[in-house]
């Protein structure tokens, strides 16, 4: 009986905790995304332009080089990153998730 009660309290507590976590989830900061995997699925190498990506994912951290290439970085908490490469024509040419 005690074991049953303890299990009930534990499960109930977890459910409350989980609800609280969902409620208190911080809003996304600049260049943050909820899911790097989902974001990568929303864009297309060889096709998406910078405007397409900005529309789909929002603003990124941008490192632009004088060669015309640009690297865009989006971060998923806690430490995942989606890195995109645009060629000088502005087309997405590579992506990687780390």
């Amino acid at each position: 009986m005690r074991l049953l009660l303890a299990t009930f309290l534990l499960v109930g507590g977890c459910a409350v905790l989980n609800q609280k976590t969902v409620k208190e989830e911080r809003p996304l900061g600049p260049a943050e995304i909820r899911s790097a995997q989902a974001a990568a699925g929303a864009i297309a190498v060889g096709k998406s332009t910078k405007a397409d990506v900005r529309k789909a994912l929002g603003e990124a951290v941008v490192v632009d080089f004088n060669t015309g290439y640009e690297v865009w970085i989006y971060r998923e908490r806690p430490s995942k990153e989606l890195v995109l490469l645009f060629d000088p024509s502005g087309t997405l040419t590579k992506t990687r998730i780390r």
Partner: protein
Amino acid sequence: MPRTLMICAFAAQIVVPASALAQGKPKDDPVAVTSMRNPVDKSYRRMVEGMELFEKRHQLAPRASLRFKLLPRHSDTDMRDIQLEIVGDSFAAPVALAPDNTFALERRAAALKENASVRPNRKAKTMTWRAEIRTPGLPPDTRRLGDLRLECEVGMQAGLISNYRPLLFGLLDPFLREGPEYCRRKDPRYLFFAERPIFGVTLVAGDRREALPVERLYGGASRDPTWKEDLAYCDCEVLVDRAYFLPLGDASWPDDTRIEFEYMDGAS
């Protein structure tokens, strides 16, 4: 005119390239070198100390030899037909430069005695220097971690890095004074340069593969919104799209760890 500019202007008037003074004379003959030393010169003595460290720490790259490499700092730096010399008070001796702008130094007692410098015929701040240590036979587009560990140590010992400004990209460490020990830190910010602009760098040891986070590429530019303002103070100025840091002091990565590059212009 600000005092610094005045000093520079004064120096520019009296500096005469040693190569010009040596023209028409057989190399190695004593010449009267009266010019001020170009501040971009590297100390021959310190480069020899780097060579000695290479011998001492050769176990990091047992099959590799040591060369030094000249790299551009500006997009308009002409890297063709560079003339390199060891210049002392009483002599100027040519140094053979390979087509890839690498070279090896010989030990010369006179150069040590006269505290000579190693001097290319290029203006100050147009080039930078690195050690070049490559184990032969590696697959294309790869490097070996032990080679790069030793490159860092030799580079620090030889004083090849210069002109960093404190706080640049977080490169705050007073590491120029620290010497080769700096390279044994877990995360030293010693900049390496790949052959071409990089999109990704991955460490591979056996079954373990780890891509470097983007903050370790491009001199850490992704974490510093003002990186372009500081670029002129970095010897990565024109090579920033090829620049990366490695976890040199992380002993969990063996010396035989392979560093794989994915280039911006290559296949994914």
